């Protein structure tokens, strides 16, 4: 199954483009870091606010920056997909890659719980100086740990993949 996906990805024009243009790879890597900062700037600051720091900042205002975070996420989804299309053998057999995807999924689930369980409506009503909600503190701490994990799995992937066939 994986090998047919791999063969299909290697035949795409995106793969050809990435392999024929070494600078495209370097630019996508830079953009992957830019996207990371756009995504996690608003996320980390909202989490820190929910944990009880920076109380003079209304959470509702920070929440207005979510479109920038989404833009950063989309940028990383696109550049990340380009890496996978170009060298699927480095990712699709690699447990560290799936751990990173799992952590991204869990971070997404954390956002869904935050909105679905009514915690968002509680915290967004917090004004300057208001103490945070206990359940929101837990979700914020979980969010910070999950994103730290995403960065760690991504950054350490080349070093933890020594035994993976096809990984550099």
């Amino acid at each position: 199954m994986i090998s047919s996906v791999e063969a299909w990805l290697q035949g795409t024009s995106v793969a050809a483009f990435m392999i024929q243009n070494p600078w495209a790879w370097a630019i996508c890597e830079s953009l992957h870091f830019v996207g990371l900062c756009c995504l996690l700037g608003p996320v980390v600051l909202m989490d820190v606010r929910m944990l009880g720091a920076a109380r003079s900042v209304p959470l509702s205002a920070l929440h207005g920056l979510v479109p920038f975070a989404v833009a950063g996420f989309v940028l990383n989804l696109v550049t990340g997909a380009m890496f996978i299309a170009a060298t699927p053998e480095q990712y699709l057999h690699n447990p560290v890659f799936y751990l990173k995807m799992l952590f991204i999924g869990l971070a997404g689930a954390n956002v869904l719980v935050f909105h679905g369980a009514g915690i968002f409506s509680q915290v967004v009503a917090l004004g300057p100086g208001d103490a945070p909600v206990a359940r929101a503190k837990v979700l914020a701490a979980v969010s910070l740990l999950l994103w730290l994990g995403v960065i760690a799995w991504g950054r350490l992937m080349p070093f933890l993949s020594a035994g993976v066939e096809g990984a550099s």
Partner: protein
Amino acid sequence: MEFFYWLEATSLATWINASPSVFAFPAILLTHTVGLTLLVGTTVVIDLRLLGFAAGAPIASMREFFGLFWAGLVLNVSSGLLLVIARAGSVVVNPAFWVKLAAIALALGTFFGIRRIVFRDPPPAGAPAPASARGLAIASMALWLVAITAGRMMAYVEEALMYGGF
């Protein structure tokens, strides 16, 4: 140059380069990425606020995030120094490294400029940031973009310098 060759021959540099431990070179790189996220992530939010986004937050309140900015800067100056020590000889002849350093110096300059213009004497609640601060906010984001790109390019430029071609 002698000094930089001596630097990359020190036992600290050898440990960073040669240790198979994930706590040597990989952990330093990871720290550099976490610091980048804190430093530039926080800066981008402050810059966006000055440009008029998240207007519900008083500009003066963004000061509360300066701690995250400093934490990111400390992480990256220290991890960055270790990364430079490890490969001092090749880093100092890498033009991408000097572009990165110049961009960082100018970006920090925009931070101090912004701090002087809007955080010493913040505009009244609801008032927009002065045009000079908005200009510095745009420059700040552009300079961090250059710093990140030049940093990423260092490996490619080093390879090109060693083997020729890209």
